[in-house]
């Protein structure tokens, strides 16, 4: 099994289309998918904003995802991970990946993360869902 932390854009995309790479990833039995308690709070607000059925999200979270509880509050997280992101508001995603002890962070938003720094400091590789699935095929 491979452990991966999923950014919220991947979770939301999997709820919107069953034909996408995000849906495939979440339903891949060889991957343990993680989100954080802060991501979950965020996801509940995003589904509301996008008029996606909240029940769909709750079912995916219950059946497919593991929630890691972050030990720090958002203010501390932003301070600790400010060098890992271009937008401070994304810092909790890096914190979630670090505290989940995964080696992969899956996101569509590659440009907003300091990919090389995160890899060097935490040994976490950042890639898109399609690239990650391709990587799994090569193993």
């Amino acid at each position: 099994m491979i452990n991966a932390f999923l950014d919220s854009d991947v979770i939301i995309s999997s709820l919107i289309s069953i034909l996408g790479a995000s849906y495939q990833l979440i339903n891949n039995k060889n991957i343990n998918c993680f989100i954080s308690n802060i991501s979950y709070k965020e996801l509940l607000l995003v589904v509301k904003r996008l008029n996606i059925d909240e029940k769909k999200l709750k079912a995916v979270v219950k059946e497919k995802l593991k929630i890691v509880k972050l030990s720090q509050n958002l203010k501390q997280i932003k301070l600790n991970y400010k060098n890992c992101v271009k937008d401070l508001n994304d810092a909790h995603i890096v914190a979630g990946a670090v505290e989940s002890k995964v080696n992969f962070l899956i996101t569509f938003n590659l440009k907003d993360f300091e990919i090389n720094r995160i890899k060097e400091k935490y040994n976490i590789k950042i890639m898109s869902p399609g690239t990650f699935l391709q990587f799994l095929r090569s193993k």
Partner: protein
Amino acid sequence: MLNQINIPQTYTPEQVASILQLTKNTVYDLIGRGEIIAKKIGKVYRIPVTSVYFALTGMDYDLYLSEKEDFKNLDRVEKAIKEVRKNL
């Protein structure tokens, strides 16, 4: 993405060998083993662009299409996430 680029829809085994940096014999071997899908027309092979997508996009054709499916809604998804994150 690839639809907007002027690329041929089929390749010869020699062209595929060049794209994938393999020998011509290896390409014929891969065709024989079914790892590269090709169409035999008379005595020659033609290889559809979908068989060499990996070299062009870094992904197999099916994964490329799957990710493209996600991209259809990505702008509004990213926008909603950004707005929510600002107010967390």
